[in-house]
């Protein structure tokens, strides 16, 4: 490989700088059009007169960038103060805390405001959370006084801008939808990259903590509809969220739900492509991913939707695995049945599947595991369409929006534009929740939605 490296680079340099074509054959594509060639000699010539190649290159790099929009021949340097570039002195402490919660909310800092892009346009208020690569603060726009969420990303000196920041910023740039958190602004300073989001006052996790024991069925319907609406929008754009969990679903005071935290999302490309299989929080992770499949598609997110749907109705997480992947899978199979080649073609060839690893459970009705599903019309049927072990059988977000479960919602909802909130339809309103809990109750363990692990081990072994 070293040899290749040298050949590649040296031949590049030789050809690019001295116009010698010898030795470059293997990697140079002969060009069809020759119109660019005449001028090249004169443009490369000055470089040849510089004796020390390397030094010349480095010097050039510092001074060679000239923005076209300046209309002057004045050299604009990479280090120019306007560029606010990363410096090598970026602080990088890696506080590993898995639960990064972002709380942003409706506000409208106009992106065209005069101070757009400047760090001093926002006043930093209290810290909202700390993640592995970013810290989130509540903030206030000095331009219009609206609240914002500031996600401050530390820039690593080793590898430049973190890939999570690049993905989150570039994906959110292209997403404009009422159910996706709005990215107002991006601020680059020497040590940090700050993403400025709308401020939303809570998230689904906190909302469910506050109203434990299951949410009002009407509210579940409204939240689920909005979640599917947002997902259908991103899935149509070849983007998977990959990290769906209640903490990442922001809830505004009026009941608007917004998808947030796109750090692990990415544009879906070639279907044969593999993604890292360490992305989804275990509780919301689909069995195919748990079994080591890396063939992700939009079905990946749909499993998480099913888990969140059940959690909203039942008041407890659908599959709250306590230990590891094995435990998580057993919890799933205990309800849905242990998959076989008949129910899930190809399951035996998944990397982590060993037939003797799992007791053979038979599939049950979902309401046996989560009784409250039986109390809401069509809820059980819809949940069963999300919770399919075989990924290809999982319903898509687009199709799920047409399910009978949503029949009660007015048809006007299906006509609103992407940017309109569902609450722009007059009759829709968030219902007051019946139970408000201040202290976390022990109801979590007591409800039948949670299988105690002792119970799960000897039940229905064949």
């Amino acid at each position, binding site marked *: 490989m070293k040899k290749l490296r040298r050949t590649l680079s040296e031949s590049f340099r030789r050809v690019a700088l001295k116009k010698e074509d010898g030795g470059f054959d293997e990697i140079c594509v002969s060009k069809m059009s020759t119109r660019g*060639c005449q001028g090249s000699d004169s443009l490369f010539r000055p470089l040849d007169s510089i004796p020390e190649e390397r030094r010349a290159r480095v010097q050039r790099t510092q001074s060679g960038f000239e923005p076209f929009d300046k209309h002057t021949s004045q050299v604009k340097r990479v280090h120019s103060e306007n560029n606010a570039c990363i*410096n090598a002195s970026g602080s990088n402490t890696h506080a590993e805390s898995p639960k990064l919660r972002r709380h942003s909310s409706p506000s409208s800092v106009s992106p065209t405001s005069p101070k757009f892009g400047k760090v001093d346009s926002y006043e930093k208020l209290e810290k909202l959370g700390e993640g592995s690569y970013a810290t989130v603060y509540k903030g206030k726009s000095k331009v219009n006084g609206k609240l914002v969420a500031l996600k401050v990303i530390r820039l690593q000196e080793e590898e430049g801008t973190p890939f999570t920041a690049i993905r989150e910023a570039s994906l959110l740039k292209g997403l404009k939808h009422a159910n996706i958190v709005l990215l107002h602004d991006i601020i680059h300073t020497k040590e940090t990259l700050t993403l400025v989001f709308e401020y939303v006052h809570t998230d689904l996790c906190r909302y469910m903590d506050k109203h434990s024991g299951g949410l009002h069925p009407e509210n579940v319907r409204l939240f689920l509809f909005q979640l599917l609406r947002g997902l259908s929008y991103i899935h149509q754009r070849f983007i998977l969220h990959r990290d769906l969990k209640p903490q990442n679903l922001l809830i505004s005071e009026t009941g608007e739900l917004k998808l947030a935290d796109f750090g692990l999302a*990415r544009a879906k490309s070639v279907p044969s492509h593999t993604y890292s299989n360490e992305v989804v929080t275990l509780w919301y992770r689909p069995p195919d991913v748990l079994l080591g499949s890396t063939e992700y598609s939009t079905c990946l997110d749909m499993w998480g939707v099913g888990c969140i749907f059940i959690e909203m109705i039942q008041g407890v997480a659908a599959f709250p695995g306590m230990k590891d992947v094995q435990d998580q899978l057993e919890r799933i199979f205990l309800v849905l049945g242990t998959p076989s080649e008949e129910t899930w073609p190809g399951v035996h060839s998944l990397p982590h599947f060993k037939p003797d690893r799992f007791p053979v459970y038979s599939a049950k009705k979902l309401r046996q595991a989560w009784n409250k599903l039986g109390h809401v019309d069509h809820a059980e049927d819809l949940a069963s369409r999300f919770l399919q072990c075989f990924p290809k059988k999982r319903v898509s977000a687009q199709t799920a929006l047409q399910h009978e479960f949503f029949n009660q919602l007015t048809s006007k909802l299906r006509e609103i534009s992407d940017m309109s909130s569902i609450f722009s339809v007059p009759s829709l309103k968030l219902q007051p929740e019946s139970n408000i809990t201040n202290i976390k109750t022990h109801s979590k363990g007591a409800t039948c939605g949670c299988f105690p692990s002792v119970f799960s081990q000897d039940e229905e072994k064949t």
Partner: protein
Amino acid sequence: MRVNMSTLSDSGFEEDLHSPAESREQRARPRARLSAERLHCDYDESCFIIQTHKQHHFQARDCLARQPQITAEARCKLVSWLLAVYKHFKLSFESCCLAVNIMDRFLVTTSVAADCFQLLGVTSLLIATKHVEVCSPRIKQLLSLCCDAFSREQLCNLECLVLLRLNFRLAAPTLAFFLDYFISRELSRYAIGTEEKIPDEGNNCRSWKAPEEQLFSVKRYKCLAGKVCELSLADYAFNKYRPSVIVQSALNLAKDLLRRQLKESSVKHTSSSETLDFLCGADNNSQGLDDHTLIQQCTQELKLLVSLNQESIQDLITL
């Protein structure tokens, strides 16, 4: 079809989403047992339409027009080098296409000295891989491929500058996307046409086994079309075409080349030629939303490009 971009808002293309999706539905109707897959196909269709319309926002036409030092020849050399680098790191073609797009769009905004053009190349590749790949190459590796002519700080600064200049807009539709889309669409049509299913890679659930020869010719067709797309990246003459146009032209050309080769060869490859015949049938129907004459023009230019690069492509044809 010329898309009326002015009527499309930034946020959605819903008014255009329906008609092609419906025709897709009709084609797929006989295969009721594939219903779940059909749902995904419909996503593919709407993705395709959105990506096709998005191209216009990400095209860097005439990116060298205002560059004082960077010539088409230099761009060709750099991209040829990047092609070797992406293979060296075993990156996806998507990363490579995206890197070239990032580089071109940066060139539209900023003039670059000839001696830091290579730095721009690796920086674009780094940004593209951060956006696309599970693991991107280490900065150190990239620097050593440039014979350590540049420093880490320079690369990081340029990365920052590129992101700012492009305003973090990186999700460009690429040749890789359209290549994948058109090929899988052709193959699924073919599968419907023969009432058989073509297994796509990594998909063990389907029972249908293609005759080896047939699979082989499909694989060769994919490789060849991919190679033609690769070559087109390096030639500035193709900068004026949208990726969807280049891909459709490359597919037409690949079929053409393989057909010609089959006729010349003495051995009878019946099933291969049948596969090709079918795939060729598809190019009569308009495949995408692009202008037909533009595709023909591009196909002609690609033909010339391929004939100039015979050696690199020959083994793919005669394999």
